[in-house]
């Protein structure tokens, strides 16, 4: 495989409710990523976007987002109805051809207009699960319950994850929920959907993220500290939650192996643990020990711009290397309920 590096990235803040439209808050994010990469917009050889019509509440919603890219004169671009992390994957594959040297990937979404309990049941099997109205919180709660019953997790650990995430987020200007919390106070809060309390859930967020990648020669030419993508892989699991062991993430483990997570020590991991119990689960799936700093950005518990949140993990892992001195980081993105589809990306400094 060709060596590909991340040479620029940008995010919008995550808002509980953006007063701008998605294209309006997306376009400065893309312009910013391009500027930080130190390249000319017209030099991009390929662009790939990630977004979701049902999240936006409109068929063909992604078409308006093209206006934020600079698509005149025409460009080569594509779109996945998936988190921007998979748009990055498609762009990474495209760069492997070797005929172009720069690519843009972005993800964006507004979760504020819709109700997750109405929307996400549509993401499940339409014959057997959607009619149950199985919403993301209930499904996550089932997973957390399974872990608690197995003894691999405690409610205190969940609260500690939430508290640590919020505290870390204080250093992240793009985060939405941040600040100090007292774990005992969190544990005194009532359940929302047992065993999950409010702090175990991600916030509702609107936001966007963009990442610029370059092939090796280009990266070295324009970027002082390129962040190398040493491995990237994604895997999906059977859909029916009842057919999976929800206390493990087999596909994350598989993707991690294929991406080469365990080849060398990992310093930082940005994991798409949308619910507090998932962090420990993902740590184990990726073989990350206690020495690994997880979600220094605050992670999805601090900001959850669906369709951008996975790509933002990649951007934050890249930031840990290019701005904070880490040498090796792992980023994880997820799709579907209870971690059905997982993408793992291994990043290294030069």
């Amino acid at each position, binding site marked *: 495989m060709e060596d590909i590096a991340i040479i620029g990235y940008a995010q919008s803040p995550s808002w509980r409710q953006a007063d701008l439209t998605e*294209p309006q808050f997306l*376009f400065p994010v893309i312009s910013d990523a391009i500027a930080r990469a130190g390249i000319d917009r017209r030099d991009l050889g390929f662009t790939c976007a990630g977004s979701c019509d049902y999240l936006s*509440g409109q068929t063909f919603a992604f078409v308006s987002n093209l206006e934020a890219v600079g698509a005149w004169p025409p460009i080569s671009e594509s779109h996945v109805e998936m988190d921007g992390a998979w748009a990055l994957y498609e762009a990474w594959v495209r760069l492997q051809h070797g005929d172009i040297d720069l690519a843009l990937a972005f993800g964006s979404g507004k979760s504020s207009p819709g109700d997750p309990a109405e*929307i996400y049941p549509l993401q499940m099997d339409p014959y057997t699960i959607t009619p149950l109205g199985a919403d993301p919180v209930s499904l996550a709660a089932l997973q957390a319950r399974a872990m608690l019953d197995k003894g691999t997790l405690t409610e205190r650990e969940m609260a500690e994850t939430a508290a640590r995430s919020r505290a870390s987020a204080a250093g992240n200007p793009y985060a939405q929920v941040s600040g100090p919390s007292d774990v005992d106070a969190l544990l005194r809060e009532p359940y929302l959907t047992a065993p999950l309390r409010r702090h175990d859930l991600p916030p509702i967020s609107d936001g966007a993220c963009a990442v610029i990648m370059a092939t090796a020669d280009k990266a070295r030419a324009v970027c002082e500290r390129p962040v190398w993508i040493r491995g990237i892989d994604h895997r999906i699991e059977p859909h029916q939650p009842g057919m999976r062991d929800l206390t493990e993430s087999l596909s994350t483990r598989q993707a991690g192996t294929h991406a080469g997570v365990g080849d060398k020590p990992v310093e930082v991991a940005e994991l798409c643990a949308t619910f507090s119990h998932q962090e420990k689960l993902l740590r184990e799936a990726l073989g990350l020990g206690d020495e690994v700093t997880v979600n220094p950005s605050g992670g999805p518990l601090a900001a959850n711009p669906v369709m951008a949140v996975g790509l933002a993990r990649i951007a934050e892992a890249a930031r840990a290397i290019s701005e904070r001195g880490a040498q090796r980081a792992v980023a994880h993105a997820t799709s579907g309920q209870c971690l059905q589809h997982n993408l793992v990306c291994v990043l290294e400094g030069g």
Partner: protein
Amino acid sequence: MSDAKPEAPDDGSVRMMDYFMQLEYHEPLCPVVMRYADELLQGHVTGHKCPRCGLVYAPPRGYCPICVVETTDQDEVVLSDRGVIANYTVVTPVQYYGQQETEPFVRAGILLDGEGGMMNLQDVVEVPVDDVHVGMRVEAVWKPEAERSIEDVTNRSWGGAEGCIVGWRPTGEADVPAEQLQGRAF
């Protein structure tokens, strides 16, 4: 949800299940569209003129996608409510859930006089559908001020003037030669 009848005979087997879902999305108008809507209520059609390339966007989007620059109230232009039909079609309505049209209706792109700007997907009124043609000069038919409404304006309005402009009626002036408008879809 479907409106087609199953073809299979009823032999007792379960072949279809109806699932009717309703999703609600509440998105506040962004500042640019809110201002546009307020101006509509007052009887003005406004757009944004890109400070770099001069293209006029009606309704305004808050950016110029060609130059990839933000546009703001500073770039607002009041547009003419008179223009010419640059393109049109007559749609024979298909019935589907939420459809309110029952008779063939016109959707036209109106190229506005003066500063320019094109209002697309506009209704043409006070003229038989068969008489609508490219080059026809038209003017906006505004609802009486007390009856105007912006409750159907959204961030993604197709035509962008519903609730305030009923449609566009011929002014009776001589046509603009169609050849001058042949290329004009937007």
